């Protein structure tokens, strides 16, 4: 077993060697611009792009003409939300989204609000992190032009009832955008069945290259139109100008093809490994709390709060395992995870959370090692924790007058 171990697959994933292999000819040998219509170099590039488009569309049950390439899911979220709000501004300016969305969605909505270009409703979630479709229905006004709710959460892995939300959107004639970055390739996604009109996802979360993503834009029932956010050569049917990064797109296509072929077996394998990790930790550690939904969650996600110990120190004690934490000390904003807070998790438990993100290349041996390390470090840090000591003495920590600083 090689150290360090990578268990942070929600942040990114290593590329599958088969993806790299597919990409290699498109750097030096077949380097053409897919928009060059008059020579063999351009044709070869265009053919490769169209093939990738088909591979990607197949994974999400879309038509290849409905795939718009972008630089990644953040751009796709921006393009979908800003593009729809701008295109349909005569109709209204209200967007409904949720409080646990990725920052690429929340901050886009906030930016539009700040500029006076939109009003937004941020729906609460239940204690498992799930949006209630009826809340979506109730939030709809005659000015609502877009509903944007994520498929699965990047921190806690909770899967939203997207199909029910899609049904409500359709019934009310409102467009439905879904940030599916964490779900595509990991769980079955069907844009028809789920009633999704626009969907963001990217390659690097599914063992493809960084720097490329896609926005699915529905072509019929209804035909969705978005205002381009970048001016230029009118690529991607005018929705996103810029020369296509052919090698990245080829890699994205291959990554989707592999997910399509292996998803059924891979998700079962990862869920089994994740369940073993969870059971192994919970068996030995008391007051370890699962964040998110017990069953309606991504097969490769595990998010646990370890009471009385702080997340960054946990990560520091397991430096040969790559993980992430909802602790303020590990975030750029110095605030604990807003996702966990939205679930109603106490601030102190948000500081104590660890996210495990399993992936295609993790092994049983790595999981065993991780279980052992987690138990070791939590035990060690609890011995060091004044809070654990007080709790064991029977002090109710909530009754203590703390001097906040």
């Amino acid at each position, binding site marked *: 077993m090689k150290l360090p171990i990578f268990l942070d697959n929600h942040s990114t994933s290593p590329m599958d060697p088969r993806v790299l292999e597919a990409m290699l000819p498109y750097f030096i040998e077949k380097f053409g611009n897919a928009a060059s219509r008059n020579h063999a170099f351009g044709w070869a590039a265009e053919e490769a792009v169209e093939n990738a488009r088909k591979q990607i569309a197949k994974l999400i049950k879309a038509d290849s003409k409905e795939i718009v390439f972008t630089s990644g899911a953040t751009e796709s979220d921006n393009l979908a939300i800003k593009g729809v709000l701008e295109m349909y501004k005569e109709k209204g300016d209200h967007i409904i989204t949720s409080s646990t969305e990725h920052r690429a969605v929340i901050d886009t909505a906030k930016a539009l609000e700040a500029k006076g270009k939109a009003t937004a409703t941020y729906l609460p979630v239940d204690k498992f992190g799930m949006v209630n479709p009826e809340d979506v229905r109730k939030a709809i006004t005659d000015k609502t032009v877009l509903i944007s709710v994520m498929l699965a959460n990047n921190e806690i892995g909770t899967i939203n009832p997207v199909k029910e939300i899609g049904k409500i959107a359709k019934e009310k004639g409102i467009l439905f955008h879904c940030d599916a970055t964490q779900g595509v390739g990991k769980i079955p996604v069907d844009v028809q069945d789920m009633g999704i009109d626009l969907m963001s996802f990217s390659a690097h979360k599914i063992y493809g290259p960084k720097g490329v993503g896609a926005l699915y834009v529905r072509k019929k029932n209804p035909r969705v139109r978005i205002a381009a956010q970048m001016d230029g050569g009118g690529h991607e049917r005018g929705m996103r100008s810029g020369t296509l990064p052919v090698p990245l797109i080829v890699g994205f296509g291959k990554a989707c093809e592999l997910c399509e072929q292996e998803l059924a077996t891979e998700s079962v394998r990862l869920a089994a490994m994740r369940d073993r990790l969870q059971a192994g930790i919970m068996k030995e550690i008391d007051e370890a709390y699962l964040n998110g939904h017990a069953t309606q969650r991504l097969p490769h996600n595990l998010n646990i709060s370890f009471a009385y110990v702080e997340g960054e120190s946990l990560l520091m004690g397991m430096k040969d395992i790559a993980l992430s934490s909802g602790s303020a000390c590990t975030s750029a904003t110095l605030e604990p995870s807003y996702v966990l807070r939205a679930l109603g998790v106490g601030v102190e438990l948000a500081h104590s959370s660890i996210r495990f993100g399993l992936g295609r290349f993790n092994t049983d041996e790595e999981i065993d090692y991780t279980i052992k390390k987690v138990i070791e470090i939590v035990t060690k840090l609890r011995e060091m924790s*004044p809070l654990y*000591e007080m709790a064991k003495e029977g002090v109710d920590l909530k009754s203590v007058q*703390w001097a906040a*600083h």
Partner: protein
Amino acid sequence: MAYSDKVVDHFNNPRNMGSFKKDEEGVGTGMVGAPECGDVMKLQIKVQNDTIVDAKFKTFGCGSAIASSSLATEWLKGKTIEEAQKIKNTDIVQELNLPPVKIHCSVLAEDAIKAALADYQKKADTK
């Protein structure tokens, strides 16, 4: 963020980790911070003839908070009450090479020292 070697060393090998009984003769206890802020430090001193003969800590917090309190106990041992009053958070920042985002850890450690000294003083005065 990379940690300095000294922070890592204190984190992996904390000095004087543990507790004295709060009501023990000559013991002063300082508890500062709050769980919702992500760090709580408990620092204790044992004083004999105006000199700190022993010190212990327990900390809930990040690696830098643990290292700051561990270092504080090392420095406190052998100091007189008066000398201990003079330990500044900036000394801790310098010794541990703390980056700007971790300066509050050193402030907390200084607060913990002050609180422990005050508690000792209060107990001594009421005797």
